[in-house]
């Protein structure tokens, strides 16, 4: 068996602590955390100690570490493009870039361009895209992408902190929230919906894009208190409806449903953060039901794929240009929602 790949992680926040470190701990024979960087040196050092890894407070030190073979970029979105560029320049074997890929189209395209130019593969963090059940069901869904008439995603979720607390013991709690938003303001509601699209809906929009190739028109957009949205958009005569509400005190429920002419798809996703296995995907036909469910979740599958790609065992399943297009799709939805909420569109 070959030596595990050395992983360097940029950013030691809750996503790194609650998602990537627990996930990587299950893949220790393939990937081993060797270096963690955070601008808060104390947090970086504390988190690194948990993995017996080195720590640093600047990106270049991590990139200069020869033990770092693949890089996970888990910093705020506005830093992603520059850090991907630096990691490719440092000759790393592969990069995992957390969502959102970037905050602007230009930055996203820069990431795609440097990946293409240097040949360094970039996997974009998208747990539902890589979910083993969702990947498997695609082999059996036949012409569903051509016949789907209606797609619905419902995300009724608990507070992220609850799941984070179940996944790790967080170093440095997130900052206390500021004053409550003025929800009477359309600008505030629009910005909340945008945050929902780019922060939450973004997990599922690449899946929705299998069935609705473009956002032709946003038909309805509304902020749902305390945090959520109700969105309806159209691609030709097909519609997608996205509903979300969080936090709730109930059992989470995160589902994707697609209605085609002769088959229906139902996917029930586990919540983020916890190692609760894959989604349960079910294909329903007039006289039969087939279902898929695996022990690994989307994060584990994503990391395993990254390792395979870095070791040359596999081609990149989802090219970075696809991820850029996914981002453009999300931005089109967010812009259309903005226009509706702000009354720019009759």
């Amino acid at each position, binding site marked *: 068996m070959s030596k595990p790949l050395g992983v360097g992680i940029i950013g030691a926040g809750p996503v790194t602590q609650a998602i990537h470190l627990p996930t990587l701990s299950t893949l220790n024979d393939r990937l081993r955390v060797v270096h963690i960087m955070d601008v808060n040196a104390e947090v970086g050092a504390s988190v690194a100690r948990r993995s017996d890894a080195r720590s640093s407070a600047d990106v270049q030190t991590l990139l200069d570490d020869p033990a770092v073979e693949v890089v996970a970029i888990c910093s705020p979105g506005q830093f992603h493009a520059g850090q991907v560029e630096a990691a490719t320049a440092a000759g790393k074997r592969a990069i995992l870039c957390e969502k959102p890929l970037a905050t602007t189209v230009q930055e996203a395209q820069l990431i795609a361009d440097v990946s293409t130019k240097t040949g360094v593969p970039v996997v974009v963090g998208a747990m539902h895209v890589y979910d083993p059940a969702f990947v498997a069901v695609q082999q059996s869904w036949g012409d569903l992408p051509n016949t789907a008439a209606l797609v619905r995603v419902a995300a009724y979720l608990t507070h992220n902190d609850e799941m984070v607390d179940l996944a790790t013991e967080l170093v440095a709690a997130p900052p206390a929230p500021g004053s409550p938003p003025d929800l009477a303001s359309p600008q505030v509601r629009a910005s909340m919906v945008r945050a929902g699209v780019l922060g939450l809906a973004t997990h599922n929009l690449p899946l929705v894009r299998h069935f609705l190739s473009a956002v032709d028109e946003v038909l309805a957009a509304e902020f*749902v208190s305390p945090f959520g949205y109700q969105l*309806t958009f159209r691609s030709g005569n097909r519609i997608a409806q996205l*509903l979300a509400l969080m936090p709730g005190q109930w*059992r989470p429920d995160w589902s994707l449903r697609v209605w085609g002419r002769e088959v*229906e798809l139902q996917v029930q996703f586990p919540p983020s953060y916890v190692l609760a296995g894959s989604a349960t995907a079910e294909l329903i036909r007039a006289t039969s039901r087939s279902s898929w469910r695996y022990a690994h979740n989307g994060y584990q599958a994503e990391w395993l794929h990254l390792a395979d790609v870095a070791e040359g065992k596999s081609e990149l399943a989802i090219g970075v240009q696809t991820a850029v297009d996914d981002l453009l799709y999300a931005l089109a939805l967010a812009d259309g929602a903005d226009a509706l909420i702000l009354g720019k569109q009759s």
Partner: protein
Amino acid sequence: MSTKTTTTLTVALDTSDLAAAALHRAVLASLPQRFLITEKQSEGADIAVISGRDPSWIDRVVAAVDAGSKGILLAAPTAVDPAQIRHLAIRFAGQAIVAVDARFAADPTWAAARAEIATGARTASLVDSMVTVEDATEDALFGGLVEQLAVLRPLFESFDHLTCVHHSPRQLAVVGNSGAVAVSLTASAPSVSGCSLRLDVVSSVRRWQAHFADDALARPTEITVYDGTGARSRPWLYASAHRTTWLQLHAAITEEASVFHYSVADLATDLELAHRVFAGSATPSHIRNWGSDSK
């Protein structure tokens, strides 16, 4: 076994609507002491089933009552004109009972849970309803909208800005609010998994989920509330809304106990509301205050 003497009422099915006739023949087979199907047409039967799909349905109701029927079961009710329904209710007041066959709104499990859910719905953040109907026709989609309103309207005092945002041969999407509650209603056709209505009423504290499946006559409606203590489901009841309505119609005729889960007045209100939403897809419908006849 029933020991009480029960009056048996004769029923004339509507042979112009074979689907409705087959459905009610099967339903009535579970109530053989209360009902006896007569192969004679409506003349002389205690109860006449009249399908709203027949354009002359109102004339046939009049004829049946004139011929002595004490009760009418209006099948396929979403196809009828609301003004005619109101007229019918007034015309036959005190003379004959008109019952509405509503497959979701009159569901006994829903009726038992409705008051509790209504209390929660008024402080919910989001109410989402989705119905799959039999056919990809405008009538079926419209019927799906009426059926959703029939279920949802008792939960709220009013809707604001209920607007049809999408209308295609296979889908109908309506959004709006009731106060601070975001409301979404979708009708889609057809579905390989059969006709059903799914309803989510979601607040931060509690989430209700109702699934009315109409793919089998006595498929139980599943109603579950999720909260911080876990999940609690309503008992499964293997009885349809159709059967419940027949029981209520029997009681209304023989005991003068008229307590329908879904009334003629409810149907008229829901049809009017649906027509306004359907017709006004380009402009928001501002719909408030149902009026006193909605209950």
